[in-house]
């Protein structure tokens, strides 16, 4: 966010300036008590500190408080010098210090004469001072300072430039955004004036180029650099620090006219290339101002464009601009600032523009630096660089930005609007690479495209399909279908290309998963399921890297939800079981970190995990997921429980569902259900009694609609399916639970009870009879079910259970006996063993039985 970046800038500046002001304070104190030696000491420190803060000062201009001190100190020293009486009273140290300091400050102040004069007179008139640094050099701080500056190429040359200051004022009034945009020197200017002014400046530059000398090559670059920084500062300083405003408003810093190239230099490709390399060499070095570097590259691009050096060099420069934009953040975890991000998008767009306009440019990673051909000639341009990598990186940056934005803020929405731009760029790149790229590259860019498509529900296609269903003629529907490419068709095309051409397993895996996800999202259950089964991903997904696993989990969940919508309750349950049973759905889907103690996860891991998170707009609603799972489990588990009420070896279908039921039972006082889980638990209880109406009212009502069901695209259809399922399963449960009470029951009555058609009831009961779940037969003429009553009574069941338990007991008992008799028997004393030996015969028989039962 802009706030953050400002704070960062300020903190470095503040740190430096605080250091300076601290020293200044001590100097002023020393001045008060006439401790000149102390003054000298501190002054030397001050010079050093000032040197250290050079980068800041370059950006900010020399701070007033510094100038003020220089002026005051000089005055003070002169005063002391004049005061002969006082001088005599001084001790030897102080006197010596006084003379040294006076000399020093004189020399030092010469550099800041202009500022000091301005400070003293505080009027607008500016003298321009030539920087005469070539006189007595010595080891004075000022000289040292100058040397440093000369070395680092930041060469101050003060020169009156009316246009420049005009320019500055314009820029100052602009916002940051317009700054960056006008810097680009390219469409989209918010302020025409600034653009115009800038053009004139560069025109001027060119006129002056003739007069400049070779050795001043770097000056223009420096001027640009300073200008931008000052603008930035003006933008940022706007909010606070009145002190700074005063200086800039009252007396704009002296602008110098400098040019990147010396006048008279013929601007041609080698020169520009040399310049480019020069700039790039600073890249990655400590203390390099990255923002400035980007700016320089922009200027270079502008110059190259003006001089019509051909697209080759432009492309090359653009590559480097984008690369350095990415470099701007040294930390992998940090994300791009919005303005940088905007620039980056623009730049890539421009680059693509150039590439599209000029089909004779070849770019590639494998073109060696020295085999590049950038010159305008008949031969096509060859440029080193990979646009695909840049775009991929851009996509990653976008993800990072989304990850780091608060998903509930307006900012997120604003950021999300860029998604369409990202897609656009990827689309353009896709078109470009389809013409020029290798299959590998195409696969990669396709995957990018897929990644931006798979999770979006295609409402257009959905509406078209709906319209088609509503009785429009077939031909019309086809026509409508052809209007735009459905995302499904797109997905199909891209994925199939990848399946055919990809050589890396990872891209194919991702493509398959995305394809399945997309199918599932659009209710194409069978395609999705078949693809999942054919791919055999379930067998080896545990070997994939975590992001792919997250994608897999997302796909499985989406598959499960799709199955649920289609009424395949069992499939839905199976698909969701793995994710839900762990209780870590949030983590498995990459939608948030679970709170865990630090022992399990060190900060390093946490960072890695954070980077894996899926951006908020791609999240799957966890409550929906859980609800779908629980309702599926309810529909499966309740009839099952009813059928196996007395079965000692009853297995749980869904542990989680049972857990919820237990939680519900533990409640001392049962109020009306509030949360989604409570609704499901209450519905389960109703279903257990075979009361489908109450079950229905708990599952489908206002609250649940709002929480869950309305989130589905075809909510009404899903609800109808659900009601139907509830009726059917309730009927089954009812028959299981109460069959022992009936001798026979009329199917018509059942159909009436559960609001089902007679034939449905018939089919359900038939199925139960066939599966031997219900011991009954159908009496066709009277339409009744006749119970056979072969189910054991509860007492019989109990006896069976007891028998089973006793079996276990005997088994365990024998194990104890075995141990006494067995391998370790040798260590027991003989007489102890004697007791058992008598029973050997019996035991042998028994053991045989025992072993048989084990086999």
């Amino acid at each position: 966010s802009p706030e953050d970046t400002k704070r960062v800038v300020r903190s470095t500046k503040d740190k430096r300036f605080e250091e300076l002001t601290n020293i200044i304070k001590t100097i002023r104190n020393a001045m008060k008590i006439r401790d000149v030696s102390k003054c000298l000491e501190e002054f030397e420190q001050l010079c050093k500190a000032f040197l250290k803060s050079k980068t800041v000062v370059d950006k900010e201009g020399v701070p007033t408080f510094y100038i003020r001190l220089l002026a005051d100190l000089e005055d003070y020293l002169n005063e002391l010098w004049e005061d002969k009486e006082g001088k005599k009273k001084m001790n030897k140290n102080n006197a010596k210090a006084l003379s040294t300091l006076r000399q020093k400050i004189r020399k030092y102040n010469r550099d800041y004469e202009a500022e000091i004069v301005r400070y003293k007179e505080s009027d607008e008139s500016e003298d321009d001072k030539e920087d005469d640094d070539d006189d007595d050099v010595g080891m004075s701080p000022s000289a040292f300072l100058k040397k440093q500056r000369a070395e680092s190429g930041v060469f101050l040359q003060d020169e009156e430039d009316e246009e420049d200051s005009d320019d500055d004022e314009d820029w100052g009034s602009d916002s940051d955004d317009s700054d960056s945009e006008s810097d680009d020197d390219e469409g989209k200017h918010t302020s025409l004036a600034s653009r115009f002014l800038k053009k004139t400046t560069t025109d001027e530059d060119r006129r002056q180029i003739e007069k400049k000398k070779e050795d001043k090559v770097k000056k223009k670059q420096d001027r640009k650099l300073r200008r931008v920084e000052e603008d930035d500062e003006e933008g940022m300083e706007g909010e606070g620090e009145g002190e700074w405003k005063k200086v800039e408003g009252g007396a704009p810093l002296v602008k110098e006219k400098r040019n990147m190239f010396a006048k008279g230099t013929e601007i041609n490709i080698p020169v520009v290339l040399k310049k480019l390399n020069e700039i790039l060499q600073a890249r990655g070095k400590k203390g390099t101002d990255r923002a400035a570097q980007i700016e320089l590259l922009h200027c270079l691009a502008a110059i190259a464009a003006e001089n019509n050096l051909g697209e080759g060099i432009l492309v090359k420069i653009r590559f480097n601009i984008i690369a350095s934009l990415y470099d701007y953040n040294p930390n992998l975890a940090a994300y791009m600032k919005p303005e940088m991000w905007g620039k980056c998008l623009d730049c890539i767009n421009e680059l693509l523009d150039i590439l599209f306009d000029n089909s004779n440019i070849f770019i590639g990673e494998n073109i060696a630096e020295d085999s590049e051909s950038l010159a305008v000639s008949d031969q096509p341009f060859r440029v080193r660089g990979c646009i695909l990598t840049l775009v991929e990186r851009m996509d990653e940056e976008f993800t990072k930005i989304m990850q780091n934005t608060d998903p509930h803020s307006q900012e997120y929405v604003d950021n999300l609007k860029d998604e369409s731009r990202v897609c656009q760029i990827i689309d353009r790149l896709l078109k470009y690479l389809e013409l020029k790229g290798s299959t590998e590259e195409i696969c990669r860019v396709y995957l990018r495209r897929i990644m931006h498509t798979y999770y979006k529900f295609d409402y257009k296609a959905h509406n078209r399909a709906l319209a088609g269903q509503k009785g429009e003629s077939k031909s019309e529907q086809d026509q409508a279908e052809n209007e735009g490419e459905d995302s499904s068709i797109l997905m199909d095309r891209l994925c199939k290309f990848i399946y055919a051409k990809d050589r890396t397993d990872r891209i194919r895996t991702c493509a398959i998963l995305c394809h399945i996800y997309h199918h599932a999202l659009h209710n194409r259950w069978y395609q999705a399921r078949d693809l999942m089964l054919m791919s055999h991903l379930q067998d080896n997904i545990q070997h994939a890297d975590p992001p792919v696993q997250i994608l897999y989990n997302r796909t499985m969940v989406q598959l499960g939800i799709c199955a649920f919508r289609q009424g395949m309750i069992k499939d839905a349950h199976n698909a969701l079981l793995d994710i839900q049973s762990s209780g870590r759905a949030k983590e498995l889907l990459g939608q948030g970190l679970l709170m865990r103690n630090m022992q399990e996860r060190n900060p390093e891991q946490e960072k890695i995990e954070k980077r894996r998170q899926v951006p908020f707009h791609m999240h799957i609603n966890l409550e929906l997921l859980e609800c779908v799972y629980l309702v599926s489990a309810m529909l499966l588990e309740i009839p099952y429980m009813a059928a196996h009420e007395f079965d000692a070896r009853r297995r749980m279908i869904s542990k989680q569902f049972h857990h919820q039921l237990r939680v519900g039972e533990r409640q001392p006082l049962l109020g009306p259900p509030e949360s989604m889980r409570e609704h499901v638990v209450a519905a389960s209880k109703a279903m257990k009694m075979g009361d489908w109406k109450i079950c229905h009212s708990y599952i489908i009502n206002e609250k649940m609609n709002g929480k869950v069901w309305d989130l589905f695209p075809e909510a009404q259809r899903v609800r109808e399916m659900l009601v139907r399922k509830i009726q059917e399963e309730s009927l089954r449960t009812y028959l299981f639970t109460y069959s022992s009470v009936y001798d026979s029951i009329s199917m018509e009555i059942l159909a009436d009870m559960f609001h089902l058609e007679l034939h449905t009831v018939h089919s359900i009961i038939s199925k139960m009879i066939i599966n031997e779940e219900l011991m009954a037969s159908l009496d066709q003429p009277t339409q009744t079910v006749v119970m056979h009553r072969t189910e054991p009574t509860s007492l019989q069941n109990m006896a069976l259970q007891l028998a089973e338990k006793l079996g276990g007991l005997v088994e365990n008992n024998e194990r104890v006996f075995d141990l006494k008799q067995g391998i370790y028997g040798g260590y027991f004393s003989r007489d102890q063993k004697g007791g058992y030996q008598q029973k050997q015969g019996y035991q042998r028989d028994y053991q045989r039985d025992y072993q048989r039962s084990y086999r």
Partner: protein
Amino acid sequence: MPPQKCAARGGPPPPSAPSYATVSEVVLKIIKHYHEEGQGSEVVQGVLLGLVVEDRLEITNCFPFPQHTEEDADFDEVQYQMEMMRSLRHVNIDHLHVGWYQSTYYGSFVSRALLDSQFSYQHAIEESVVLIYDPIKTAQGSLSLKAYRLTPKLMEICKEKDFTPEGLKKASIAYENMFEEVPIIIKNSHLINVLMWELEEKSAVSDKQELLNLSSSNHLEKSLQLLMDRVDDMTQDIVKYNTYSRNLSKQQQQKHQYLQRRQQENAQRQSRGEPSLPEEDITKMFKPPQAPPRMDTLLIAGQINTYCQNIKEFTSQNLGKLFMAEALQGHSS
């Protein structure tokens, strides 16, 4: 329920285990106590008073323990008992403490609590007994009142508090000989007998008797349920014991290996003329694993036994009834 006519029991009983006579008054009091205070699985308890006459223990009176409630948690039971007995003495009623009684729920009374309290009774007053009253059985028509004492063997073990497997083995105690049942003779005063005769004459009990009513399923189910729970407990205990004995034997093996190695080493050293290694405390190195206490297992076994007896009794009755019914039906058709 016509009180049995009674006679003092002859025979030579062991001195500390007299045969018992109770007076119907006590029986009625216990029943009344349960009906007033006990519900469902709740258990009521009280003190028996009486005296030893020759080889008989005559229980002549009783009074209930007050029901515990949350409010009077600091209620002093001993104080209450003393107070009661003193009051009884004032009105010249037998006031010697001879045991206690307890109601039971489907015959589940063999528990650690019962063992402990009976032990303390028997420890303090040698002749004391515990009367177990089963209200459910009684409600079905047959008065169920049993008197139990701890066997001398069990007393010894309880005194030593040695419940390890070895200890129990040494004492050769099993679930069968933990408790000894003492026969009960109910003896009424002549006045009561007369009253009974009179009541029997007057009572307008219908002649129609449901002889063949099984009415057992509920009882049986409950018993089975309880039996099953105990079996589960038993299984758990056995598994525990199993683990213990496996650990023990594993350790034995280790110990043995260690000793052998040490012996070999010593032999080598001797052959080389070096002094043998000092004997270390092996028990310290191999601390035997904690043996699981066996008393609970024994008690569970005892309880299972009681359940089984109950069920057997019940089912044999029912089987008889079933056969009778079959025969009757065959006859009539």
